[in-house]
Structure formats: C-alpha cells, structure tokens
C-alpha cells in the first residue's frame, strides 16, 4: 500500500533535476552536489576520481537513507580560483575518457582472444 514504485529508484520525478548544488556557507571553496536517483555505482566512482585531483582538498559522498534515492557529494577545492563544479566536470570527463579507453581495450581483447582460440562455431 505504501510501497513506492520500483522505477522511482532510477527515474526522475516531475520537477526534479538530476543535479543540484548548494555552496557551503561555513567553509570556503566548498559545496555539496546532490545527485537525484543515483546510487553508490556512480558516487563512489566520482569520489575516487576527485580524490586524485591535486586541486581537490576534500571529496566525500553520502547516501543518507537507503530508501531515498539521492547522493550528496561534497567537494572542497584548494583555492578559490577553482570552483568545485570545475573539478567535478574534470573528474567526469576523465572517467568518460577512461570508459572509452576501456571499451576499445575490451573490444580488442575479445577480438584477440577469438583469433587465438578460433571458435568458428558461434558465428560473429
């Protein structure tokens, strides 16, 4: 009776934006991004990538409640010249390039394996 639709875990509600930003009032050069209808899959990936950026002083994520599908990602940069959103965009771009690289690697690896272990039966 009270159970929400399963699709509410990944489909945005009406009037809901995918990403929201709230600048931190107490800490300089920091802000929290809220990703709606996302989970650990992408949040951990972004957080780990942000931690590799030397311009990022702090990066952490929270999934406040398992039944509420949103992720808070807090980023603090080292200088006021670099906005948290900039580092986030850079992180996403790096990950996107890494995924592209992975796609070519996997395709090549599969072709290589098929050539070396001629299956012939399965059909391409």
């Amino acid at each position: 009776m009270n159970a929400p639709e399963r699709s509410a875990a990944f489909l945005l509600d009406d009037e809901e934006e995918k990403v929201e930003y709230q600048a931190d009032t107490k800490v300089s050069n920091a802000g929290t991004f809220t990703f709606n209808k996302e989970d650990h899959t992408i949040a951990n990936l972004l957080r780990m990538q942000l931690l590799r950026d030397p311009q990022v002083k702090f990066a952490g994520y929270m999934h406040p409640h398992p039944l509420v599908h949103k992720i808070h990602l807090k980023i603090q940069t080292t200088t006021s010249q670099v906005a948290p959103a900039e580092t986030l965009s850079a992180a996403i771009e790096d990950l996107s390039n890494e995924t592209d690289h992975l796609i070519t690697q996997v395709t090549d690896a599969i072709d290589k394996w098929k050539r070396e272990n001629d299956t012939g039966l399965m059909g391409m």
Partner: protein
Amino acid sequence: MPQQRFPKVEILNIAPHFIQFILSETDTSMANALRRIMIAEVPTLAIDLVEYAENSSVLNDEYIAHRLGLIPIRYTPEGSLKGGDCHAAFLPHRECVCFDRCVRCSVEFELDVNFDKVNSTRPDQERDLALTVTSRNLTSNNMLVAPAHFLNEEEQDESHDEGISIVKLGPGQHLKLKAIARMGISKEHAKWCPVAVATYRFWPIITINQEACNMLTLEQKQELVDACPDRILELDEITGNLVAVENAYEMATFTEDLKVAQNAMKKRPEDDDFVRVVQSTDRFVFSVESTGAMDAEEILMSALRVLKDRLNYLAAEVEKLKD
C-alpha cells in the same frame, strides 16, 4: 586530462554464457561500478504483462505470470547468432509514443496449449500423462526475439531440450494467454537481470623471500605448502625452492593460514616473512555468467555503454549548473 587512467583488459576465457577477464591499472571504484552495472542496469527483455483467455490449470494466473516473467528472453540481431544487446532495437515502453504498446517497444508472445487436443497426437506410452507447458510453447511476433534455450543448433538437436517448464496440464485443462515482453533493468525487477553471477576477485601478489626461505628445511617448506588451504604454493622439483603456483589467482582466497604457520616457524617474531600474500589494489579477475538472455561479452559491452552514457548525461547536467 592529467588524472585519467588507462586500464588494461586481458581475456582469460570466453564462452557464450561466460566470460572471465583481468581488469588492471584501474581501481576498485571502477571495478565495482562495472560489476554493479552488469547486475542492475543492463537493459534486457522480459515478460511484463500477461493477458489470459483461458486458464484451467492448477496454478493461478499471477503465479503463471510470475514464472513467465522469469524466463530469459533472447534478442538475436539480424545476421548474428549471439544473444545481443536489445537497447538499440527497442524503446523503453515509458518513452514510446504509442498508445498502449507497439512493435517498437514490446514483443508479444502467444501460448495456447489444450491438453485434450495435444493428447490425441501423443504416442501411446505418453498418453494421459501430465503435459508440461514449456517456454518452447511460446510463439513470438518478432522473429529476432525468443525465449533463451540453447546456444546453437548442434546442442539443441542433441539435448532434446524441452524448454523451461511453466506449468503441467492434466486432462480437460487448457492454458491460453498472450504475454507482452518489455525492455527494463534489474533495478526495477530481478527478472530483467542479465547475469546469474557477476563478480570480481583481487589478484594475489605473492612475494617469496628466497633468502629467508633458504634457511628453512625441506620439511618446513612442505609444511608451508600444506598450510595454505588454497594451495597457492608449491615446491619446485629441481631446486627445492618455494614457488607460487601458476594459476594462484584462481584459487587464492587470502586466508591467514600462511601467516599463522610462518609465525610458528620464525625464530623471532620480528623476522621477515618467508611468503607474503597480499591483495592487489589495481588488478581484478572478473567472472561473469549470463542467464542466457545475452552473451556474456555482450553484457560487458552493454555495461560499459551504460556507464559511458550515464557519465555523459551527468556531464551535461553539471554544465547546466555552472551558469
């Protein structure tokens, strides 16, 4: 971009339903993201709606509908024999502009089995026995889509596979229904999950301190070999040295047995270890087993595509925030 990584992939084994590969030079967040996407967010087809004309079987409507939903549905693109990625061929039904359903967003299956009609055609020894309605009785309106059975023609003919059993009928019972399959992801219901198992293990880094090992007797070395329940060590026949087994990565489960055995052998606790087994932080062995709806390599490619599309979508949304 300076912080980009360049992961490497090495395939260990590919079968139509199974793939095993090594992912390296990336970290656990990427490995875990891939695993989670393979399990939860790769789109597949599954029966979502069932309309009954006739059901006098022993199972009620929703029970049969539940069973139909769990049948893996295989999409084979034109000119290929592989269970392929269906996301390009179908629209998610929520996004489709049609009124209720159409060929663009769904596939219709029909099932009509009447015990009495079938009974008369059966050979004598089988007559009047319970008749199993299986996934082979489902007829599709789309040539490229069918319930997953066997991998190729050879196995089909040899195995006499009757399909996935749905319900058994007795005399006088009739099952007639229309089942509509739609594209979806496992987050919405587990029936859309393309994998039976998608998992990764850490690559074991085994360092053997040969200097320290030279001070051990052969019996002590054999003791170390036997101490490990995974048997990742062995004694080299010629030199008598301790070496790691070739396929240690398949068997290592990182138990503490070796550590305990070594502590007992050391003269002083602060001495160096003879053998150290550590989990690698950037090398993973993935094993992905498919349910039959898609080939395992297709699942991997689809997961990467889903990840890429998700990242692009987020990039665009973050851009919007900047102004």
